């Protein structure tokens, strides 16, 4: 064979370098197998506890659950069409949107304000501990406590009575106009401590030089905060916002306990709606379909946040 027509492989075979290449490939395969072996427990966990249930849930959502008989009928998109025609689904969706917006805005705004207030203040640790205290209480216990706070003869009405000078008899947890806002106040009360602590950590980790330089250049405290502190705090704020949004989507205990006497309980959030449909009415397939919708909404929001995180990281570089 002429040397010009030889392929690389033939050349390597002639001079013996293919053996080296083979050894290199074998080494790489071995490394991959070792890596897989170390990853295996985590993979089994993720697949078994996360992916398999999600996949099974998707399967259930397109089947028809017949009580005591199982899922042997294919329903296609029937459960999703039923969701669209349910009078409660869109109310639950709207309330969930309110919850997500409120769980993003209020804990972060109040948490940041408290973090800036307490930072470097006298008795900083004591104030931090007091604000953080509700966070360590179980949500159900918090809910039961606040039922009495919002009771017709409870603390809130009595304070309003003292301030306004006349009888106040508002059923905070029993009417549509006040129930969501009331439970959001409880949620913020319980969550703001954690947000404050995380933002304090972020503030304490900020480099001092840019802030000092801005002060020397004559920037006001607000200007420093707006143009220096906030941009530098952006990664922490984004991380905290992800936590808050997820908490807003998944809130259940507070709604379930505090909304027990409210006639429209099933519309207070998508999670509650799903629970009613799946477990109270026994419609497991329909409940699975609602869970798929919740999952898609949460995924969309977290993808958006991940994209924002990526943009912020690039800007900081």
């Amino acid at each position: 064979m002429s040397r010009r027509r030889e392929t690389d492989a033939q050349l390597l075979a002639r001079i013996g370098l293919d053996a080296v290449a083979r050894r290199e490939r074998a080494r790489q395969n071995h490394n991959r197998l070792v890596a897989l072996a170390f990853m295996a427990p985590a993979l089994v966990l993720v697949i078994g506890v996360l992916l398999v249930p999600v996949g099974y849930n998707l399967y259930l959502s397109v089947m028809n659950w017949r009580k005591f008989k199982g899922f042997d009928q294919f329903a296609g998109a029937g459960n999703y069409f039923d969701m669209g025609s349910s009078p409660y689904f869109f109310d639950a969706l709207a309330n969930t949107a309110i919850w997500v917006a409120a769980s993003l805005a209020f804990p972060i705004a109040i948490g940041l304000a408290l973090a800036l207030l307490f930072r470097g203040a006298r008795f900083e640790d004591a104030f931090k501990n007091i604000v953080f205290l509700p966070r360590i209480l179980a949500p159900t216990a918090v809910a039961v406590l606040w039922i009495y706070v919002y009771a017709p003869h409870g603390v809130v009405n009595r304070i309003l009575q003292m301030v306004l000078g006349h009888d106040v008899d508002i059923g905070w947890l029993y009417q549509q106009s006040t129930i969501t806002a009331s439970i959001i106040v409880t949620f913020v009360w319980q969550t703001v401590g954690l947000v404050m602590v995380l933002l304090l950590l972020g503030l304490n980790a900020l480099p001092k030089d840019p802030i000092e330089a801005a002060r020397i250049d004559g920037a006001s405290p607000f200007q420093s905060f707006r143009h220096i502190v906030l941009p530098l705090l952006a990664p922490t704020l984004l991380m905290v916002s992800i936590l808050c949004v997820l908490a807003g989507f998944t809130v259940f205990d507070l709604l379930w306990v505090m909304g027990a006497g409210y006639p429209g309980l099933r519309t207070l959030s998508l999670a509650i709606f799903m629970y009613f449909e799946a477990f109270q009415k026994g419609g497991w397939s329909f409940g699975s379909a609602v869970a798929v919708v919740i999952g898609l909404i949460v995924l969309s929001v977290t993808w958006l946040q991940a994209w924002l995180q990526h943009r912020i990281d690039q800007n900081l570089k």
Partner: protein
Amino acid sequence: MKLIAKALMATVTAAWLVGAATAKAEEVKLYNDKGFWAAQMQAVGDASEKKTGVKITPSPYSSPEQYKAFIQSSLTSGAAPDMFSWWTGQTFNDLVGSGQIAPLDDVWSKLVSSGQYDPSSADLFKVDGHIYAVPMLLARWVVLYDKDMFKEAGIAEPKTWDDLMQDAAKLKAAGHTPFEATVQEGWRGFIWFQEMMLRSNPKAFKGLFDGSVAYDSDAVKNAFKIWGDLYAKGYMSDPRSNEEAKDFASGKAAMYLIGEWAQGIVEKAGMPADKIGAFIMPNIDAAAPSAVIVEGAPIVVSNDGKKKPAVMTALNFWASVDGANAWAAASGNYMGNLKANAPNANVSYITAAMTANKTQSYLRWWEAVPADLQGEMVALLNGFELDPSDKNAADIMGKMQALNAKYWATHK
């Protein structure tokens, strides 16, 4: 020596294995969703062990939804528990329809022939002519009343609806709230609705459960009007309370429309038994026959469970005089066993009154209504308790009928 030691060890091991196997075979689990009665059921279980050698061990779930999910998934996989509680009504028919629950006609034949139960007690547990359960409890829905408040207001137990309204007016004049009613836990909305329907039009009441009577029919409108009038007159307590039994025990209302099983809870809340009276609410339509709403919680056994002697021993003990006495003493619940001790004086009184008046039993709305409609409808009824206006009543009836019509369009 070695041989003797080995033989000894083998004997001890065998004895231990037999002992363990024997101990396990003599314990029967009773699955249920009534964790608040776990200790009381255990008392019955211990009594069973003493009498029969078979111990009944309650296995409670903390919520009805969790429990339903457990039972549904067990039956779907063909592994129904040996013995468990359920609910009567449409959902009981669905359970029997799974084909995994054993008929108990033979058990009932002995219970009735021995004079322990009236044949009508089995009606709640009958599907297609066969009986599929024994009662965990049989509760009549009555009006518990505060004897001291009645004495103070100078009134007696009402015999007619007009008597009841006059009593309510006198209680109000004496500064007491006549009737207790709340939206506590979100399910109580149907209590006054079912009573108003039954007392004003028992035929229409029954027609609600097979779709033949609409929820916005004249009969239902009349029931809502009467119910709303009670609120308008100021006869009802503030529904925004989470402590209904405690409220009644502490004197916040004079009368409490509830199942007989609540007397034990009211006593625990601090009201002595001798201060509690009971009567069956009089009919609004005086021409209607004497009636009472009944709630019966069934205990069923699976087909496999019926083949196990220990399970049948446990079931028969539960329904027996000894079982009924143990349950009554522990929980204050009545089971319908005619030869057992009544858990309290009011249960005997109601039984005697029902016998004297030939009172007919009607299944509770909660069980009689299709399970798919239960939650949404009771939420609407709770809404009426919170806003008992005519406008809201019309809105609620419209919504209830929309749900009702949609259901029966695909289930008739």
